[in-house]
Every structure is written in structure tokens, then in C-alpha cells.
């Protein structure tokens, strides 16, 4: 299984994770990605020009295009080239991580953060508004659904103020996650 690249994105507030595919790694080993092209060498230059124009760093674009066509790279070398081509121009603090070390639950995905030793954990302060937003939207949808039924159902009435307080005061991610009205059974 190929590893992933985790990095801080210039544009997004959330932590970004890039998952490379096996195909480019394979071709960087044996080359020939553009062999079917009438002029492979010239097309390599075209690809470098296109990538550079779209923001990819020139060295990363050249290394990527040449490796795809001419090969000769080990898996680690290929991953390094792919990392620079896909992540180098959009993020920083790029590190290789195993997919198994990433959280499997994406409920608080936008609260993912890296601690000092590089492991991914959930930032409790970022998780509080996420929990509230998910609860609020679900409540709104459920009440809208009940209202639009032919035989209307009573709206779900939850103690909003109390829930906000619970969310604000939750002492752990697990505790925060458990704050959910029973009436909103669709989770």
C-alpha cells in the first residue's frame, strides 16, 4: 500500500492529504507513459510547460514529466517526485504518512491537526463548531422534512441553549461527539 502525503494547504484551513495512485509510480519505474504520442520527447516539454503555467514549480514539473516518460526511478524516488508535483505548489510542511495512521472517522475531518510528533489528532476547539453545525443542519432538515409531509409531524424540539452549552463545555472529543438529540436519529 502506498503512503500518503499530509500537508498544510495554502488555500484551505483543513489539513490536506494527498493519496498517490500506483500507475504513475509504475511508469516512473519503467517509463513510456507517452510512448504512443508521435513525438514523446517533444510532448514531455509540452507537459512541463503546461504544468509550470498552471502553477506547478518548474523543477517539480520537469522531474515529473521526465520520470513518467523516461522512468528509472525507485518507488521512493517516484513518490518524492509525485509529492513535489502534486503538493509542492499548493501546500507546505509536507510529510509522508501511512494511511493506517490517519483517523478512520471523518466526522471531525476539518478539525484534524498535526501534533508535535507529526501524528494526526483532532483539535477539540475546531471540533466544537463542527459538531454544532452538523447538529443544526440535521435538525433543520428533519424539521423541514416533517413540515413538508402531507400528514405533518410535529417538529423536533430540542433545548438549543443547553446543547450549545454542552458543546462549549465538552472536555474531550468523545464527549463532544456524544452530544446529539435522540430525536435526530439519522446520524
Amino acid at each position: 500500500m502506498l503512503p500518503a502525503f499530509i500537508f498544510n494547504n495554502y488555500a484551505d484551513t483543513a489539513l490536506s492529504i494527498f493519496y498517490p495512485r500506483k500507475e504513475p509510480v509504475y511508469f516512473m519505474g519503467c517509463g513510456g507513459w507517452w510512448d504512443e504520442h508521435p513525438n514523446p520527447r517533444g510532448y514531455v516539454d509540452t507537459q512541463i510547460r503546461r504544468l509550470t503555467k498552471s502553477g506547478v514549480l518548474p523543477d517539480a514539473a520537469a522531474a515529473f514529466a521526465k520520470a513518467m516518460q523516461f522512468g528509472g526511478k525507485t518507488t521512493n524516488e517516484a513518490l518524492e517526485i509525485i509529492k513535489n508535483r502534486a503538493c509542492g505548489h499548493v501546500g507546505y510542511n509536507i510529510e509522508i504518512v501511512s494511511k493506517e495512521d490517519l483517523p478512520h472517522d471523518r466526522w471531525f475531518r476539518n478539525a484534524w491537526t498535526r501534533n508535535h510528533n507529526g501524528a494526526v489528532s483532532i483539535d477539540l476547539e475546531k471540533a466544537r463548531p463542527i459538531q454544532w453545525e452538523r447538529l443544526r443542519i440535521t435538525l433543520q432538515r428533519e424539521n423541514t422534512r416533517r413540515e413538508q409531509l402531507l400528514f405533518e409531524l410535529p417538529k423536533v424540539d430540542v433545548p438549543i441553549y443547553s446543547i450549545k452549552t454542552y458543546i462549549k463545555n465538552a472536555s474531550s472529543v468523545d464527549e463532544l461527539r456524544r452530544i446529539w438529540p435522540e430525536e435526530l436519529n439519522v446520524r
Partner: protein
Amino acid sequence: MASSYTTRKRLEKQNPGENNNAWGGYLNSNAIDLMDECFGIVCVAMTTAGDSTLSQNNGSTDEGRRSQIVITGTPTSNVRLFVPAVQSFYLVRNKMAGTKKVTLTNSGGTNGVDFSGSGSGSEQGLVVSDGTNVREVFRTVSIGGFSTFTSAVWTAVSDAATDTTGGATQDLMPFLDASDSGNLNKVLVTDFFKNVLANVSARTSVALADRLMVTDTDGANIAGIATVQKLHDAAFGLTAKTSIAGADTFPLNDTDASNVGKKVTLTNLKATVLNGLYAAQSDQETATSIILAVSPGRQHFHPGHPKSFVSWDNSGESGTTNCTYNCTGITDGGTGISTATFSTAFSSTGYCIADHSTNIAGAGNTGWYSLNISAVGDKAVGSLKVTHAGGNYGASSVADADENNLALFGDL
């Protein structure tokens, strides 16, 4: 005491004191004249079947003393001509009609030299006898300018065929320097060849069966016969093949003289032929031909073929891609945000996006999802960043989808 005779040419050696007052006549007729005869010609007409022997006489004229032999006749089988079993050399020309050979040898000798008749090239050459065996110094056939040259020589020789006394200067034409008669018999074999080759006339065309003179550093091949066909085969290393491999080479001959003799492999030949039958990238991109066949390596250049597609899952385990094409990888940028990176960049950002995303059993959001490109620059030639919003009943938000599918059409 009686006279004795030399071993090789049988010249008389008078005993000292013999032939008082008459020894000069003996010396002139039985020694000096016979020495002159040594450079003469003998013309031997071979019978229809059977061998012949050059005559040998001590102190008087004979055939075996002469160094030039012209052989004529039309034997019906291969024949032998016996020369004296003494050390000597002979310049031989075989003018026999037909294809039978004459072997020049010593009676009792084990080795001889074969000369073909006119039907097989009218061979001529120089042989030496060591007293036991006759061996070849050089032997050649009459071709082109060489034939013309030797024809003149041997015409003179033939004219002298009736000169039974021998000794005429013109009989020695093969070795005659017209500008200086002092060079008689001083022509080296190498010089002889140089003169011969200098007179080979240029051919305006060559047939496969034409013969060539061959000489190399291996003396065994001197005067060997090679045809144009053999030379051609040797040059291209051609041998009879029972099967053909892709790397086999063929000599190329076409109306462009510069291509004559060039090699082409079967693979190249095949590619050249097939290139005219299969669509190139430009044919696929034009998409107008109705006669060209499409190979797997060209199919994806058609405008109607997706240039990239990817199917991935953002709701469950991160980084799960189901299938991809022309995709280096997927970036998970947060809830509902993904970026597909292309292995081959598009020529422009004007490519078409077809997408479908759905939530099958996700939490919080159900039903349909929509794709959005939220910022300028998210749609780039080398990547595409998309945001998925999902939800029901008028309330949507950025959210993960169980299954995200993208297919992109455009120009690579």
C-alpha cells in the same frame, strides 16, 4: 668421352677437348639455340579422348623445353598433359573448346593444375614444376578488358603456333615492354596483375551472374571466382531462411538510387505498411476519417473519449479510490473538498467535466450531491479541485459523499 646434358633443359655440355674445330656448331645448335627455345611456345592439340605428353630430347629441339603452352582441341572427357619431370615453369593458356578440363602434371606426379576450356572460362595461368608435382602460381579466366588484353597477347602467340623453331621475340608478348625491349621477361607477377586490372573495362550495368575477380590476403583466394550474386549475398549476410523474425534485415532497392543496398528490418517494414492503415493522434483528434483503423494506443485521443476519470470515496476510510485513468492521485482537502491531479495535463482549462456523487449510507446527509468549483484556479490544466455539497429539502452544505465520480473530456 661423349657429351653430357643439363638436367632441366637438356642442353648439350661438350666434353672438354671434344669436337675439335667443330665444337662451335654444336654449342650454337645444341645449347644456345635450345636456350632460346626455352622461351618459345608449343601448341598442343589434345585428342578427343586421351592424354598427351610433351616430347623431351637431349640436345635437340623438343616440346617440353618451351615455357609457353597453348592447348587446343575438343576432348570429350577430362584429359592430362604431361610435362617433363624436371624443375621448370610454364605459362599456360587453355584454348580447348567445350567444358572439359586439362590437367597439367608430371607423369607419375601426384599433384597437377586444372585448366578449364572455353566453355568454362578459358583459364590461363602460370604453373611451376618441382620435378615431381606441378603447382599453380596463378590462374585466371578471361573476362572484360582482361580478355581484350589477353586476346591481343594470345593472338600473337597463336600466330607463332606454327613457329616450330621457337625463339621469335614476339612470342614473348605477355612480358614485352613496348618502350624498352630490354625489359623482356622482367615483369613481376604483381606488375602483371596491375596491368591486367588497369585494363578491365568499366561496366555500365551488372547482372547477378557476372563474375568478379577476387583477391585478398589469403593467397588461396587469388583468382577465385565470385559472382555479383555471391558478393551481394555476402555483403548482406543473406542466407536461406525457414522463418522470419522481426529483426531480420532486407536489402532495400527502390527508384531512389540513394536507397539501394540499405537495410530495413521486418519490424520497420511492418510499421511502415501499418502506419498507413492506422489512425495517428492527429487523425483521432480530427475525428473525421471513416477508413482508418484505431489501435489501443491511439483510441484515447478521440474527442469523445474521456481524457481522465476517477472514482473515489470521501465518506468512509480516507483515500479510497475505486478506479482511475490518467490520475496521479487525489488530495483530500477537508470535508467535501477533493483535488484530482492528472498524469497528463490538458492543453487548456476548457475541458468538460461530467460528475456524479451520491451518499448511500452516510451520516448526516442523504440524497443528492452537487459538485462545485468554488474558486478561480481550481480548474487547472494539471489538476481539478472540486467541492461537494449535499443534502435534502433545500438545506445543503459542504459534505463528504460516499462515492464521487469525475469524467473529463478535452484535449491532451
